[in-house]
């Protein structure tokens, strides 16, 4: 509704008032119209035009008014006098506040003299104000009633005077007085009074816009009040620049809404595709935020310090490309595969040195690396859980109002919209919201055969379980086979046998979701719940994907570690031979220097793991983008343009345009994030890559959705804060931290690369820091604290606390539900009661009418009594 809110007009310069009044017509709340801001330009122009028109109109009115004044002096006097008489009477009765009188006056006096009278009035009022001011400065105040009478009588006397002249005189008068009695020292009572006065002024300012006064008077009063407030607020020691702060605050709020990234895009998509599609984009944005922070952590605390303060490239073997690879280390193909120079850079684990402190800052690099690795995971846990909790709170409120459709019907249009494009969006969003509401209604009313649906649902779940089990077995089988092949050596097998795992995985990933889709049609769920089931099922399927990946990785790690053992042996032999060789040639020569590129080195399994993850992310990103371009864009282009020369209707018929696949995209996002969490420890560049990917995909997908997808047939309402996505994300987070923690805790780090080289386990860095950087007592306390005797009771305590909190929250929820139920029943009862009352009243009315038609005399009596009753009421009201 266009008058739904209170507006903050004080900030707007008053000379725009007439124009702005006009715009009340279209006013919702400015801050609410996020969609609309591109229409502002046009509105501004329009304002200008309107202003001009208004000005003309005013000029016309003024001209007529002046002519009327000349012609009819006598005419003019009469209504005025009448008015005054009326008012006096009311004054005697102790009633008739100024405002009420004015209202009536406005309604009663219909000819052009009103302009003059109002001018009179305005002067009277300003006089009132001036009087008040004077009182504040000085003496005892009379009661307001008397003051007003005073003002009025004064006005009566001076009614023949020229108003303008008079008012200016008065103003001068006032200024003089203020100058004389300017409060240098104020007694407490005076201060109190002043405070009250200032408050009153403030109140006046805030209610001024609603007063039915002529513009000029408003302007005058406003200016005066502002001056007054500013003058004395300073004396009272309050903030002076209130106006400025208000403006700043407002601007800041606007700025804040403008700062929410992609809000416009998401709103636009929501208006065309409904909240379910928008929920994906909101989730994407949220994910982007998380990744920004992860990126900040790894970039600021790990990558930059090492690049700036660590030993430069080429200073040691782990920071140099080996001689054998040097020739093509800069080739694009190698770099694209994250080999060559990319492998020996800050992007990967192996580049980091195990030196305890680097640079002039004595930055503890290994410690920082470890803590950042742990910190990213801990932060992610915290954020996901906190968001879930907050969303749960929001869900608790509930919005089951009983006037859903009425509100949609009467209040959905935003009257500020002035831009045709925005209007289109709004039309679309209203339509979508209606569709969503219809769907909710249909779903809530559906009551077919319960037994049949139950049976179908069980059947569907059974089928899905069969599918999952089958694909699980298939994956297991294929992985085992490939392990066997790998042991035998890959060269002796065909292409299919080498790529079997990948092919099977992608085929499963392609066809199983379709199968699930078909099966879910059996279940007849509400689409929102159906989406959740679908997500859960595909999630289970993708877990297989994850499993194979981790198995393959573990195998490779083991291989590399065997290689490392062999190499360690060889290393000693090589060194010995080097030493012997030089010794044989010249025994007194200084220690020989071998170029770091020539020193043999271990395979460094950590870098390998990091590379695997980075490659996976890059290829995954590429496939997503390419499928987007081909599957959506190309299809849309073909459908659109081949439609002119095709034998059937492509747009309505078979290929049609694609719908946006919420479940697939959400899962892609979630699994991608899982990969990031798993791999970020071994490849610090992963969060940066992911930020890039999310950024691009935000724009690309927004564009693709708007340009080549069609809205789903059944648009349904999804809550913006989707806890189901979050739950899946939490599961994936847990699953992805497991292998990462496992490798960190159980596998010893490589001996010649990475920040933990030379230690037996990666977490030894903590102990080292405790021993060398903290005082001895701290280490002691720590060792006591990590004693199982202390840790176990602590854990127990935590479990107890969790249990207690959970049970209390459950009981609260119960209480909430009960209250809600009570409210609802009460509402219904009330409705029934009023209905009954209305029916009864209708019946009474009918009876009365019957009776009346029987005896018209009675009716007359009735009327008379009614009139007398009314008269009574009036007198009562007057008293």
């Amino acid at each position, binding site marked *: *509704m266009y008058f739904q809110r209170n507006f903050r007009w004080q900030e707007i310069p008053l000379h725009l008032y007439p124009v702005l*009044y006009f715009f009340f017509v279209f006013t919702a709340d400015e801050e609410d119209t996020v969609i609309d801001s591109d229409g502002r330009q*046009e509105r501004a122009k329009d304002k200008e035009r309107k202003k001009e028109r208004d000005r003309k109109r005013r000029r016309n009115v003024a001209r007529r008014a002046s002519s009327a004044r000349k012609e009819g002096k006598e005419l003019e006097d009469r209504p005025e006098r009448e008015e005054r008489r009326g008012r006096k009477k009311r004054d005697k009765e102790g009633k008739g506040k100024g*405002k009420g009188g004015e209202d*009536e006056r406005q309604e009663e006096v219909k000819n052009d003299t009103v302009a003059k009278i109002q001018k009179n009035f305005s002067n009277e009022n300003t006089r009132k104000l001036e009087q008040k001011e004077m009182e504040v400065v000085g003496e005892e105040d009379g009661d307001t009633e008397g003051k007003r009478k005073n003002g009025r009588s004064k006005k009566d006397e001076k009614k023949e005077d020229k108003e303008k002249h008079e008012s200016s005189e008065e103003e001068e008068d006032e200024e003089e007085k203020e100058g004389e009695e300017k409060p240098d020292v104020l007694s407490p009572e005076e201060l109190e009074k002043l405070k009250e006065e200032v408050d009153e002024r403030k109140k006046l300012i805030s209610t001024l816009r609603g007063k039915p006064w002529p513009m000029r008077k408003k302007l005058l009063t406003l200016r005066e009040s502002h001056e007054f407030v500013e003058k004395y607020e300073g004396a009272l020691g309050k903030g002076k620049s209130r106006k400025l702060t208000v403006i700043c605050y407002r601007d800041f709020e606007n700025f804040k809404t403008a700062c929410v990234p992609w809000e416009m895009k998401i709103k636009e998509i929501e208006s065309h595709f409904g909240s379910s599609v928008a929920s994906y984009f909101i989730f994407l944005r949220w994910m982007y935020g998380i990744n920004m922070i992860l990126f900040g952590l790894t970039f600021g605390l790990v990558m930059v310090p090492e690049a700036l303060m660590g030993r430069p490239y080429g200073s040691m073997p782990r920071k140099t490309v080996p001689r054998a690879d040097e020739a093509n280390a800069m080739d694009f193909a190698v770099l694209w595969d994250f080999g060559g120079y990319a492998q020996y850079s800050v992007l990967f684990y192996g580049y980091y040195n195990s030196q305890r402190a680097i640079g002039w800052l004595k930055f503890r690099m290994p410690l920082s690396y470890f803590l950042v690795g742990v910190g990213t995971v801990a932060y992610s846990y915290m954020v996901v859980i906190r968001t879930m909790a907050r969303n749960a709170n929001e869900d608790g409120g509930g919005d089951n109002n009983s006037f859903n459709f009425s509100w949609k*019907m009467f209040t959905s249009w935003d009257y500020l919209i002035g831009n045709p494009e925005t209007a289109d969006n709004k039309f679309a969003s209203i339509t979508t919201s209606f569709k969503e509401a219809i769907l909710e209604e249909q779903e809530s009313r559906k009551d077919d055969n319960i037994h049949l649906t139950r049976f179908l649902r069980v059947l569907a779940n059974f089928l899905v379980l069969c599918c999952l089990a089958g694909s699980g077995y298939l994956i297991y089988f294929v992985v085992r086979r490939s392990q066997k092949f790998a042991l035998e050596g890959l060269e002796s097998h065909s292409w299919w046998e080498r790529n079997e795992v990948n092919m099977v995985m992608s085929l499963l990933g392609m066809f199983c979701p379709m199968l699930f889709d078909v099966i879910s049609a059996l279940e007849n769920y509400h689409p929102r719940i159906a989406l959740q089931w679908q997500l859960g099922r595909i999630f289970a399927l993708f877990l297989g994907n994850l499993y194979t990946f981790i198995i393959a990785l573990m195998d490779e790690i083991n291989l590399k570690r065997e290689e490392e053992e062999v190499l360690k042996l060889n290393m000693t032999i090589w060194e010995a031979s080097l030493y012997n060789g030089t010794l044989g040639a010249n025994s007194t020569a200084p220690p020989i220097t071998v170029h770091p590129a020539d020193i043999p080195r271990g395979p460094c399994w950590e870098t390998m793991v990091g590379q695997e993850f980075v490659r996976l992310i890059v290829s995954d990103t590429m496939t997503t983008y390419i499928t987007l371009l081909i599957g959506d864009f190309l299809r849309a282009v073909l459908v659109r343009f081949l439609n002119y020369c095709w034998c059937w209707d492509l747009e309505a018929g078979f290929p049609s345009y694609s719908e946006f696949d919420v479940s697939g995209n959400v899962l892609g996002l979630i699994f991608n994030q899982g990969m990031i969490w798993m791999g970020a420890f071994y490849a610090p560049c992963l969060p940066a890559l992911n930020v890039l990917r999310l950024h691009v995909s935000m724009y690309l997908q927004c564009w693709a959705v708007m340009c080549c997808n069609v809205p789903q047939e059944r648009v349904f309402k999804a809550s913006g804060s989707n806890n189901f996505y979050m739950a899946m994300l939490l599961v994936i987070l847990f699953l992805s931290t497991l292998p990462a923690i496992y490798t960190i805790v159980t596998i010893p780090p490589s001996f010649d690369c990475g920040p933990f080289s030379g230690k037996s386990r990666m977490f030894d860095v903590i102990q080292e820091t405790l021993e060398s950087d903290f005082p001895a007592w701290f280490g002691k306390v720590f060792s006591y604290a990590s004693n199982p005797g202390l840790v176990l009771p602590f854990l127990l305590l935590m479990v107890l606390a969790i249990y207690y909190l959970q049970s209390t929250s459950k009981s609260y929820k119960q209480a909430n539900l009960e209250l809600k139920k009570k409210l609802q029943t009460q509402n219904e009862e009330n409705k029934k009661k009023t209905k009954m009352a209305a029916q009864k009243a209708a019946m009474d009315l009918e009876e009365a009418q019957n009776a009346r038609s029987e005896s018209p005399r009675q009716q007359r009596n009735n009327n008379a009594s009614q009139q007398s009753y009314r008269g009574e009421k009036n007198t009562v009201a007057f008293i």
Partner: protein
Amino acid sequence: GENGTLSREDFQRIPELAINPLGDRIINAFFPEGEDQVNFRGFMRTLAHFRPIEDNEKNKDPTASEPLNSRSNKLLFAFKLYDLDRDNKISRDELLQVLRMMVGVNISDEQLGSIADRTIQEADQNGDNSISFNEFIKVGNLYFVYLET
């Protein structure tokens, strides 16, 4: 025109009104019945509905007529926008017309009908299958409450 009054065409030139689905209704609200010109006074009188509500508890004057910008007068104004035939009731047909203006052809007539039925069912209290002004007030006041929370 230059005669000190506004005609319907003048209003229709305002883009906000031109694209507003209820624009015609709003414009109609400016014109007294049977006239197609509005002078400045009438114009301001209609606009007065849009002034924000003032909390004038201090001068609750029973003798003064209710100001045009009181909540109930605002609601009455909005009610008149929907009450096409001015019989002080919003009937199903009137709702359907408004709905058609708002969503166009994107929703089938049958569904529009059910929306209108549902709306009436929600708001209707005396079972006459139309929304009277009192019922409308109830809906509107609840919406104000909803906005304030």
